[in-house]
């Protein structure tokens, strides 16, 4: 039997020392995810233009950012891309599935620029709800004009294959999608067969033996693949996958569920011996 819960999201005002609120104001959708994603993106953009982004020194935002894997993902992506670009000698092309408003892209720009490199080409593909928002905030970035965003609400394996063919690096940001309210999702394992380029994946996983269903704070039920199974399916491709597991990362985004812990798995594969610090051939966890 499902457990009945009452829920709300908003701003609570408590008299000091009391746990009984005297006011509650609901926060609308646009005051939540969009607000935090845009703030995060512009914080990074400010960092690109100055050493310290004082305007954004907010503890709440800092705490939110610590629960977002965008910088981890971008750091791995930028390191991979540098090695790929150095080998090919060409202007690289990055594609990202489910980029949201482009926070990972923004971090990659930061890391790319700090290395003194010319902008790379970028293609995003994701939910139509993000299309205008992505384009608007990216279009004002004067030096990074070579980008696109394809609005596709239900991404197919065919879409993944196409993106993979046109890219030097394909980022599949399944964690970004996990956090959204969109219904359909692609399966990380099913993508593997059609990969043509270097790939970097971010996916929420469970430390249980089998896939589990968890409910997010948005009330959306999501499947979490078992960490051991997904690693097995990656390695079964015969490609030299590398992994980094972030146990317990942003676990509060899901309502209390099974006893097994959950976390985020970052994984990449690239031709040749491309190594990124912090990644390894296997993952140790406490199951």
């Amino acid at each position: 039997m499902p457990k009945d819960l009452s829920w709300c999201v908003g701003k609570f005002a408590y008299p000091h020392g009391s746990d009984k609120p005297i006011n509650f104001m609901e926060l609308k959708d646009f005051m939540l995810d969009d607000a935090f994603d845009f703030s995060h993106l512009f914080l990074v953009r400010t960092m690109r233009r100055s050493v310290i982004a004082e305007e954004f020194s907010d503890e709440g935002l800092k705490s939110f950012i610590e629960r977002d894997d965008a910088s981890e993902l971008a750091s791995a992506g930028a390191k991979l891309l540098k090695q790929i670009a150095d080998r090919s000698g060409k202007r690289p092309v990055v594609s990202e599935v489910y980029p949201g408003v482009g926070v990972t892209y923004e971090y990659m720009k930061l890391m790319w620029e700090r290395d003194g490199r010319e902008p790379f080409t970028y293609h995003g593909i994701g939910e139509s709800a993000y299309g205008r928002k992505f384009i608007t905030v990216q279009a004002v970035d004067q030096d990074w004009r070579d980008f696109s965003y394809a609005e596709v609400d239900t991404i197919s394996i065919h879409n993944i294959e196409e993106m993979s063919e046109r890219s030097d690096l394909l980022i599949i940001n399944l964690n970004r999608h996990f956090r959204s309210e969109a219904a359909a999702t692609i399966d990380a394992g099913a993508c593997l067969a059609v990969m043509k380029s270097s790939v970097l994946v971010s996916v929420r996983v469970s430390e249980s033996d089998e896939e589990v269903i968890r409910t997010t704070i948005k009330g959306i039920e999501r499947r979490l693949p078992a960490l051991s199974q997904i690693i097995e399916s990656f390695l079964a491709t015969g490609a030299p996958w590398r992994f980094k597991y972030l146990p317990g990362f942003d676990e509060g985004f899901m309502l209390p569920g099974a006893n097994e812990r959950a976390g985020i798995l970052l994984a990449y594969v690239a031709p040749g011996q491309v190594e990124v610090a912090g990644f390894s051939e296997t993952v140790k966890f406490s199951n």
Partner: protein
Amino acid sequence: MTSEYKLRPFDPCPVPKIGVMDSAESGKSVMRLNINAKYLFVDDKGGIVHEYYVPSNPDIHNVGGYVGKVAMFRDPAMREHFEREGITRESFNSPKFPILRTRSPQIDLLVYQYILYMRAELKVERFSLFDHGCSVGEHHDLLDMMLRAGSGGTLNAESVLDYRGLDKSAILLAIAKMMHENVDPDHFELLLLEGTEFDERNTTDLSLSIGVVNHVHNPMKALEKILTMTRRATFLALWVTSEDEGFWAVNHVGNPSYFFSIKDLAGLANARPDGRFLVADFILESDSTQPNSYIGIGSDRIASMGSYHFIYTTLADPPYSDNQLAL
């Protein structure tokens, strides 16, 4: 697949009939508040099952709405809509663009109509516009969209407006700057200041303040300064009370917010006797999208509160059919 949870929304703190801050005495007392923002899940006994904290800074909440507005105001589909349907109250009430039905765009439409009138009748080509509480500069974007669509692309905000935006939020202004890097800085200026602290000697043709005057340090002073510095027209959303005297409330951010009385407005009109308040709209607070915005105020008092959309103008024959406020 078995569902783990069945969720239903609830209000953890319904507005009482009489709020803890409603009495005259409470208005003079000090209450220390802790404010946080979170997702809250409780069981049928009211026990907390789960909490997920999110940023509680209102500037960060505002980023979502205002940058989202800029995205909508730069949408080519909106420009096509204006070119096809015209830029009128009817086209602003189209279900295709619900954002245009909301408060700020409705007031931007008044500004646009005023600009057109002044250009046509008084042959004024360029206007200075003071945006009091400009956030990320989204008014500039909607005016830009209307000017482009209404002129077949021959006009835009940069060619018509000398825009000066003021906000006390460094975050919002940083974003405003980044969102308008393409606009000539000679025609787009941003000021990081508290909303009473601007210099009224810097006069302006037009001014705009959407609810900001209510929660600056000195609302009466700020409004008087805006009216004094504005040569042609001030566009305002102003929160008022039908009670005899204006009063201070505390908004959801924990900041004081002043509700003007009609007596207050009469006093301000006397300070600038060559103009008058025209009423474009009035929205009862109980009908607004966020009636729980004020801490400790009960439903009885909320019923006395509302917001006017005003144009304070010195024009004898303005381009509106709106009525003058009886003061």
